[in-house]
C-alpha cells in the first residue's frame, strides 16, 4: 500500500476515534446530569410528601385552619414538581403515574378530612371521631405509598446515574485502546519509512565512494520503492555515463600515447641523418653549417625528451594500480642514496621521518618521491650547502606528507602553474629539466584521490605537500 494512503487512513481513523470519544463522553455526561436532576426531583418529591404527611398529622391533632392553608401550598408545590418532571424510562413514567394517582386521592382524602372537621360541630362526636380516624389512616397510607414511589423514583435515578458513569468509563477505556492502536500503526508506518530511507542513504554512500555496481534492494510497494527504483536507474545511468566518459578519456589517452610514440620514428630520422650528414660530409661545411646541424640534433634531442615526458605522463593514466602498504621512509632513503652516488661532491643534509607508511601503488609513490626529492636536490644545487626534509604533518585534519628544501624556491604567484605539464619557473640554463615531473606527481596523487600543493619563497626554499586517500 502507498504510504500516503496509509497515512490518510490512519489520520481518518484517528479523527473518527476522537469524535467518537467526545460524542460518547458528552452523551454519557448528559445521561449522568439527567439522572442527577431526576434524583434531586425525586428527593424533593419525597420531602414534600413527608411534609404533607406531617401537616396531615398535625391537622388531625389541632384542627387549625392555618395548617390547611399550609397543606394547600405544599400540595401545589408538589403538583408543580410532578408536572415539571420529565422522566424518560417507562418504569419512571409508571411510578410517576402512580404518584399522580395517589396525590389525587390524598388530596380528596384531605378535603374529606377537612369537610368532616367542618361538620363535626353539628354531628355526634363518636361518629365524627370514628370517621376522622379512618380518614387519617387512609391519608397516612396514601402518603406512605407516595413516599414509597418517590423512593423508587430516587432509586431508579440512582441506577441510571450509575449505569451512565459505568458505560462512560468502559467507553473511555475502549477509546484509549483504539488510540493506542492508531499510535502503534503510526509508529509502524514511520519505521517502514525510516528503515528503507536509511538503506537508501547507505546505498548513496557506497555508490558515492565509487562502487557504481551497487543496487539498493528495498522490497515494498510504496513511494520508497519508486524512489529506490529511480535511485537504481540513476546509478545505472551514472555507470553508463561514467563508462562513456572513461572510454572517451581512454581514447584521448590512447591517441596521445600513439601520437607521441609515432613521433619518435621521424625524429629518429632527423637526428640520425643529421648525424650521418655531419660525420660523412662535415668536412665540406664551414663552422656555421656544422653549428646549424648541431642545433638540429640538440633540438631533436630536446623533442625526444619531451616525447618521453608525454609518454611517461600517459603511462601513469594507463597503468593499473596495485594498492598495498608502502614504506615511504624506506623509498625516500633509497632515492637519496642514488642522488648522493650521482653527485657525491654535494653538501646536503637529509632529514627523513622514520616509519612513514602509506597505502597506495608502490611504484607510483616511488615516482612521486623521486620527483619531489629530485627537485629538492636539483633546486638546492646552486647553494653551498642545503637541508632537505621529508616528513608528515596534519593539514585540515589529514595526514600530509611533505618535502621541504632551502634552495632556489619560487614565486608563490605561480604556485598552481608548477603542476602543469612543461611549465617551469626556472630557465634551463639555471636548472636543467623539461617540466614534466610535477605534472606526473599530480596525476599520481589524483589517482590516489589525494591533493598536492606547494609553498615557496624565492631563494628561501620550497615545500611540497601531498595527501593520499587510499586508506
Amino acid at each position, binding site marked *: 500500500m502507498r504510504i500516503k494512503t496509509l497515512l490518510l487512513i490512519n489520520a481518518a481513523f484517528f479523527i473518527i476515534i476522537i469524535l467518537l470519544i467526545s460524542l460518547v463522553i458528552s452523551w454519557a455526561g448528559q445521561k449522568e446530569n439527567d439522572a442527577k436532576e431526576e434524583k434531586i426531583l425525586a428527593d424533593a418529591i419525597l420531602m414534600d410528601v413527608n411534609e404533607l404527611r406531617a401537616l396531615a398529622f398535625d391537622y388531625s391533632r389541632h384542627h387549625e385552619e392555618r395548617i390547611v392553608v399550609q397543606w394547600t401550598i405544599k400540595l401545589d408545590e408538589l403538583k408543580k414538581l410532578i408536572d415539571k418532571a420529565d422522566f424518560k424510562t417507562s418504569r419512571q413514567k409508571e411510578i410517576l403515574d402512580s404518584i399522580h394517582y395517589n396525590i389525587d386521592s390524598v388530596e380528596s382524602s384531605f378535603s374529606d378530612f377537612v369537610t368532616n372537621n367542618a361538620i363535626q360541630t353539628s354531628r355526634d362526636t363518636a361518629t365524627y371521631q370514628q370517621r376522622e380516624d379512618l380518614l387519617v389512616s387512609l391519608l397516612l397510607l396514601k402518603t406512605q405509598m407516595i413516599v414509597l414511589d418517590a423512593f423508587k423514583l430516587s432509586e431508579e435515578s440512582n441506577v441510571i446515574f450509575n449505569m451512565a458513569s459505568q458505560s462512560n468509563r468502559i467507553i473511555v477505556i475502549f477509546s484509549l485502546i483504539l488510540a493506542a492502536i492508531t499510535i502503534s500503526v503510526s509508529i509502524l508506518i514511520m519505521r517502514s519509512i525510516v528503515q528503507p530511507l536509511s538503506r537508501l542513504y547507505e546505498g548513496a554512500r557506497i555508490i558515492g565512494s565509487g562502487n557504481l555496481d551497487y543496487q539498493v534492494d528495498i522490497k515494498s510497494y510504496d513511494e520508497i520503492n519508486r524512489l529506490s527504483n529511480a535511485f537504481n536507474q540513476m546509478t545505472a545511468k551514472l555507470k553508463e555515463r561514467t563508462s562513456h566518459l572513461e572510454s572517451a578519456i581512454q581514447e584521448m589517452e590512447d591517441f596521445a600515447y600513439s601520437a607521441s610514440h609515432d613521433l*619518435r620514428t621521424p625524429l*629518429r630520422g632527423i637526428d*640520425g641523418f643529421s648525424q650521418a650528414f655531419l660525420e660523412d660530409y662535415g668536412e665540406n661545411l664551414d663552422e656555421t653549417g656544422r653549428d646549424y646541424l648541431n642545433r638540429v640534433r640538440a633540438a631533436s634531442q630536446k623533442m625526444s625528451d619531451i616525447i618521453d615526458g608525454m609518454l611517461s605522463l600517459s603511462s601513469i593514466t594507463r597503468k593499473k594500480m596495485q594498492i598495498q602498504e608502502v614504506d615511504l621512509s624506506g623509498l625516500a632513503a633509497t632515492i637519496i642514496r642514488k642522488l648522493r652516488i650521482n653527485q657525491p661532491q654535494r653538501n646536503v643534509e637529509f632529514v627523513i621521518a622514520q616509519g612513514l607508511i602509506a597505502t597506495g601503488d608502490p611504484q607510483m609513490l616511488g615516482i612521486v618521491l623521486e620527483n619531489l626529492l629530485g627537485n629538492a636536490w636539483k633546486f638546492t644545487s646552486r647553494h653551498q650547502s642545503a637541508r632537505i626534509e621529508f616528513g608528515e604533518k596534519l593539514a585540515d585534519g589529514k595526514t600530509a606528507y611533505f618535502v621541504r628544501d632551502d634552495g632556489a624556491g619560487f614565486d608563490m604567484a605561480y604556485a598552481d602553474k608548477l603542476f602543469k605539464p612543461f611549465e617551469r619557473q626556472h630557465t634551463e640554463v639555471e636548472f636543467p629539466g623539461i617540466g614534466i615531473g610535477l605534472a606526473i606527481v599530480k596525476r599520481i596523487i589524483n589517482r590516489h584521490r589525494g591533493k598536492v600543493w606547494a609553498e615557496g619563497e624565492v631563494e628561501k626554499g620550497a615545500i611540497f605537500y601531498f595527501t593520499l586517500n587510499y586508506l
Partner: protein
Amino acid sequence: MSKELDLNKKILLVEDNLDDVALTMRALKKNKILNEVIVANDGVEALDYMFGTGKYIGRDLNDVPSVILLDLKLPRIDGLEVLRRIRADESTKMIPVVILTSSKEEHDLVEGYTLGCNSYIRKPIDFDRFLEAVNQLGMYWLLINEPPPLKKR
C-alpha cells in the same frame, strides 16, 4: 675485428621504415659489419624468407640468417607474431632474434611474452647509443657466438 667475421652469414632485418633501414645499414657498415643484409618490409615478407614461401619460394633453406633484427610494429603480421612462428618451427627456433623496440612500453610488452627471444634494443634516437648497441650486437652474435648448428630438412 672484421677479419674474423663470417661474411657468408646473412642478417635478416625486418623493418618497415625505410629511414630506419638506411640508418641501420649505415650503423652496421660503420661498425665494419659487412655481412649481407636481407631486408623484409613487413611480417609476411619476413616469414616468406624464413620458410621459403611467397616471394622467396624455392629459396635454399639451409642458408639460415645468423641473426634476425626484428621491429615490433609491422604492417600485416606484427613482430611478436613473427617471433612466435619462428620459435614454433624446429628448423628456425634456435636463431638469435634481436627485437627493436621504440619505447619503454614496447619493451615491457615484449618482456611479458615468454617467447624466449634473445635480446632487445630500444631503437635509440641518439645515434651514438644505437651504434653502440649494434656494435655490441655484431660483436656478440656474429663474432663471439658460434652460429647455432643447422638442422637439415
